[in-house]
């Protein structure tokens, strides 16, 4: 493992010591502890079986599937417009962001492209979904560490974002707003001004979180050097998004691929952190929320006028072919591998959701840590159960 920073070094030494203890000490009867599926720390129904030596984890295994809904199968018996209803519910906090890669994949196969205004509004909603998703993480991380106040601030300010979503799409949780070739509707009147105000709130919320939680010594003691993921290991497990950027990998699909969405028109920055620990993951996500607000403000200022829907056939049939489209979703890389046979519904949809890969590193990551750190690490990896179980 490449040791680059002091925090990594200390974590590495601690892990070595833990390994040595686990291996050398006399064989005692370990205790198997079930975290979940009904446990306050696992938002959703993830179950983690940990084998403990004292309070130290010897072995851990996440067990998922309690919420498996078989979306890949269900997608095969629906039409393309109906599929968006399903995929809204994969990462239910990043609702709109789920729709985009699927719609883009279908648009690719059909060879159509949405008009610029639609792309800009898509990008705005995409980033709002990011704020709605990640701001909850910013508060939730606090509650997993025992600080109960941040989560209420997160819910308070997230509410403004959701209200905006509701005003434009009619849905707070499942907007179902993206259409092949454009959007369902244009923005309502006065929405842009309202959104400016909300983004100011979001930025001040980030500052609040930084003051209340990130600057706290206890928070730093609990997260620094805890759950260190070296970049190479993280990539091998397919970690993406803020999780891998916190390990120092400078990779953001919003910037690194040629996307029809409007990120390329904005001035923003991809944040990385060299440490790869829980603190770094929190830090990167906090910066990303700020950047998302910045992106939205810039997009609102330069919103082009024009239609929001391209000409598409009334009955949508996607030409045969295969397309892979992935975007940088709030939780990480989300991709759809779409196989069409020319029908009205997809032949096969492979949903590559971020949390499934992000959480698959858990058995590797949890060896040798203490029970309280299990919670910290899981919270900092940030998964949504719907995104794991699909």
């Amino acid at each position, binding site marked *: 493992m490449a040791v680059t920073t002091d925090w990594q070094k200390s974590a590495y030494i601690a892990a070595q010591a833990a390994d040595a203890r686990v291996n050398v000490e006399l064989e005692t009867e370990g205790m198997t502890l079930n975290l979940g599926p009904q446990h306050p720390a696992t938002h959703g129904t993830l179950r983690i079986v940990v084998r403990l030596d004292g309070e130290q984890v010897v072995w851990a295994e996440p067990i998922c599937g309690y919420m498996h809904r078989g979306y890949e199968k269900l997608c095969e*018996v629906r039409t393309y417009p109906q599929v968006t209803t399903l995929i809204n519910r994969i990462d239910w906090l990043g609702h709109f962001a789920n729709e985009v890669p699927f719609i883009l994949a279908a648009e690719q196969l059909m060879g159509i492209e949405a008009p610029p205004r639609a792309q800009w509004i898509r990008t705005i909603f995409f980033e709002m979904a990011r704020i709605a998703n990640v701001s909850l993480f910013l508060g939730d991380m606090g509650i997993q560490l025992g600080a109960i106040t941040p989560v209420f601030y997160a819910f308070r300010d997230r509410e403004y974002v959701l209200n905006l979503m509701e005003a434009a799409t009619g849905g707070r949780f499942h907007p179902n707003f993206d259409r092949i*070739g454009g959007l369902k509707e244009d923005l309502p009147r006065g929405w842009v001004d309202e959104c400016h105000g909300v983004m100011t709130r979001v930025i001040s919320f980030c500052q609040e979180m930084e003051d209340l939680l990130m600057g706290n010594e206890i928070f730093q003691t609990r997260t620094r050097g805890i759950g260190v993921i070296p970049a190479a290991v993280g990539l091998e497990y397919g970690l993406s998004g803020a999780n891998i950027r916190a390990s120092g990998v400078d990779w953001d699909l919003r910037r690194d691929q040629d996307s029809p969405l409007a990120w390329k028109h904005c001035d923003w920055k991809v944040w990385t952190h060299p440490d790869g620990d829980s603190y770094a993951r929190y830090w990167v996500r906090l910066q990303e929320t700020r950047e998302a607000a910045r992106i939205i403000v810039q997009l609102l200022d330069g919103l082009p006028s024009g239609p929001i829907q391209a000409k*598409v056939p009334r*009955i949508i049939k996607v030409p045969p072919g*295969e397309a892979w*489209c992935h975007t940088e979703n709030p939780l990480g890389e989300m991709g759809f591998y779409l196989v069409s046979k020319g029908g*009205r519904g997809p032949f096969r949809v*492979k949903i590559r959701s971020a949390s499934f890969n992000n959480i698959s590193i858990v058995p590797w990551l949890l060896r040798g840590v203490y029970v309280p750190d299990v919670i910290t690490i899981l919270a900092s990896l940030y998964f949504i159960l719907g995104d794991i179980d699909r």
Partner: protein
Amino acid sequence: MTRLSSAPEEPVGGPTGEVAAPAGGAQPERDRLRQQMLDVLRRRLGDAVVGSEIAGGDMWVRVERRAWRRLAEVCRDELHMDYFCFLSGIDWMVNPAMSGEKVWEPEGGGVVMEGDEGDAPAPTGIQTGVGGGDSRFQVFARLYSVTGKIGLTLKVDVDESDPRLDSWVSVYRGADWHERETWEMYGFDFEGHPRLRHIYLPGEFEGHPLRKDFPLLSREVKPWPGLVDVEPMPGEEAGAEDATAGAGAAG
């Protein structure tokens, strides 16, 4: 952004062929890079590379089963594909009851399949996709290079009667869960996988849900009511219509 758009009139199963104008001027250079990658793979794996495709800003490579793990190693070590994206399977059998087209016919409301998995209806045809294919089942995976910002899709045929395949876990640790998922959803056996156990389904689950001949029971009990919406209007050809209306009706 990978961009693939094939002409609708082209036969299914062939290479998806002509590519829409790639966005961004750097696309030809990227395609040259992809060609170099493909050359490396051909050099290392020889005739085990049985199909390939570079189109629309993306690339597909299909190999024989024996070269599956070697392919991953070459990709990791020589092409610097450090990021494991996903691995999954695909069943190319067209099952009229499952493909959806059948149930969309007006009279086809309650399509009931004959028998279940053991007594599957005769496949109406197996038409494989990009990169070709010789068998009903394929496993496909995607790798990406974070440094080179380039990815590729890898495919391998899986024998229907003997669905065995080398595991990738020793090459990419992240393949663990994906292979478990593919194992339970398709019934492919990954040799060398440390513990092939159920990941989503309960332990006593029988059958492989993502195979095309696995019945989706809720569809058999009741036809999908939402399908009524996409029926063409009487005396109307599916085609150039006002887009918003189409989207609205579909939603």
